[in-house]
C-alpha cells in the first residue's frame, strides 16, 4: 500500500496582491493544502524564469506564480512585463518537454482570499495527479553521481 504522493510546490507571489490574498485566506481560517511553500516578492515583474528553473532543480514538482490583476499592479506595469515573459517562457518549457501543466499562473488580488485557497487546492490536486516529475528527478540524481566513465 503506497503512500499518497504529496507534491512539493513552490509559489512565487507578489506582496501587494496575492500575498495579501493569502493572508486573507489565513485570517478567514480557510483551509488549503499544505504542499505549497510561498515565496514573497515585491512584484511579479521581479520574477525571473531562473526562479522557476531553480525551483524545479531543487525538486519542486510544480511551480505557481501569481500577482495583481492587469491594471492593478502596485507598481503600475510590473505584471504586464511579467505576462509577456511568462507567455514566452511557457512556450520554451513546452518545446523542451517540461510539461506546461507543472507551472501555473494566476491573478489573485488582496480581496480574493477564497480564490487563493481554491487555487492552491486545485493546483495541488492537478500536480498530485501528474505525479512526481520523474524525468527531472533522474537528472537531479545524476548530478549527485560520480562521473560515468
Amino acid at each position: 500500500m503506497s503512500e499518497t504522493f504529496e507534491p512539493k510546490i513552490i509559489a512565487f507571489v507578489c506582496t501587494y496582491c496575492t500575498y495579501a490574498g493569502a493572508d486573507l485566506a489565513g485570517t478567514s481560517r480557510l483551509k488549503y493544502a499544505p504542499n505549497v511553500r510561498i515565496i514573497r516578492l515585491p512584484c511579479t515583474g521581479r520574477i525571473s524564469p531562473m526562479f522557476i528553473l531553480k525551483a524545479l532543480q531543487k525538486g519542486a514538482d510544480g511551480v505557481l506564480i501569481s500577482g495583481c490583476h492587469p491594471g492593478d499592479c502596485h507598481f503600475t506595469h510590473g505584471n504586464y512585463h511579467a505576462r509577456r515573459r511568462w507567455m514566452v517562457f511557457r512556450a520554451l518549457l513546452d518545446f523542451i518537454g517540461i510539461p506546461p501543466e507543472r507551472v501555473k499562473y494566476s491573478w489573485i488580488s488582496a480581496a480574493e482570499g477564497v480564490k487563493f485557497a481554491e487555487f492552491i487546492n486545485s493546483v495541488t490536486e492537478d500536480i498530485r495527479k501528474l505525479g512526481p516529475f520523474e524525468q527531472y528527478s533522474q537528472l537531479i540524481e545524476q548530478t549527485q553521481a560520480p562521473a560515468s566513465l
Partner: protein
Amino acid sequence: MSIEEQYRTRAKELLSGGAVKMVIGYGKGTTANRRRPLFISSPDEVERLVLDDVCITNLSGYLVSEGLLSDEKRVAVFLRPEGIRAINILAAESQLDADQIVIFGFDVNGNEVQALKGIHVEEFADVIGSIKEAAPEAAEEELFEKIEKMSPQERFSFWQEEFAKCIKCYACRQACPMCYCRRCIVDSNQPQWVNTSSHTLGNFEWNIVRAFHLSGRCVECGNCDRACPVNIPLRLINHRMAEEVLGAFDHFSGMSKTQEPVLASFKKDDSETFIL
C-alpha cells in the same frame, strides 16, 4: 562584374579615402568550402576578400567587440539580411551607433549571390519587411516538425539526449551577435544561478536560459548551431521562440534601430489565455 569584384572595388574606395577604418568580410578558409572572417585595414588587402554562397557566418557580432567602435570611426561589414537585422537590434539595445556601420549587404539564393542595395541600416527596411511577411510560410525543417508532434515526455527525452552532449564550451554564446553581456549569467556566482558543470541538468538550464534571453532578439542566423562542436540543433529552439513572439506579439526582431525589445515592452491587451 561579379558581386565579389564590385564589393572589392567598393572596399578599396572606402579604405583609400579613409571613409572606413576597417572592412570585416570573408576570406578563404583552410579548405575549399570554408570561409573565415577577415579584417582588413589597408586598400592593398582587398583582393583577399571573397564573396560566394559559402559565406554564411554572421559577422555582426564582431562589431560589439570591446573598443572596436569607440574611436567613432566607421567600419564596413559584409552582412546577409540576418546580419542587418542584428545591427538594428544592437543599435536598439544601445550597443552600437548604427551610423558607424557601412553595410555590404548580400543574400544567397541557391548558389547565387545577390547584392542588396544600401549603405546604412535604414535602407534595408523593405528587405527585412519582406522576410517578416514570408516568415510564417517559410518551410519548416523536418526535425522541427518531428519535435512539435512529440509528447512532452518524448520531447524531454530528445533534448535530454542532445543536452547530455553539451560540454559548456559556450561556442553558441560566443558566436551569437546578441550575446554580448560582459558578465554572462552563467559567470555569476553569487548566487550561482546556472551550474557551470556539464551534467545534463546544468546543460538543460544553460540552454533554456540562453534561449530565453534571446527570445525576440534572435535573428536565426544559425551561428550558434554551426559553432556547436557536438552538433546540438540549437537553431530549433531559437526558431520556436521566434515563432512564439511573432504569433503572440507580432514581433519580428531587427525591423529597425528604434524597435522596442519585445520583453522590455508590453501592450495592455496582450494575450493571457493561460492565466487562471
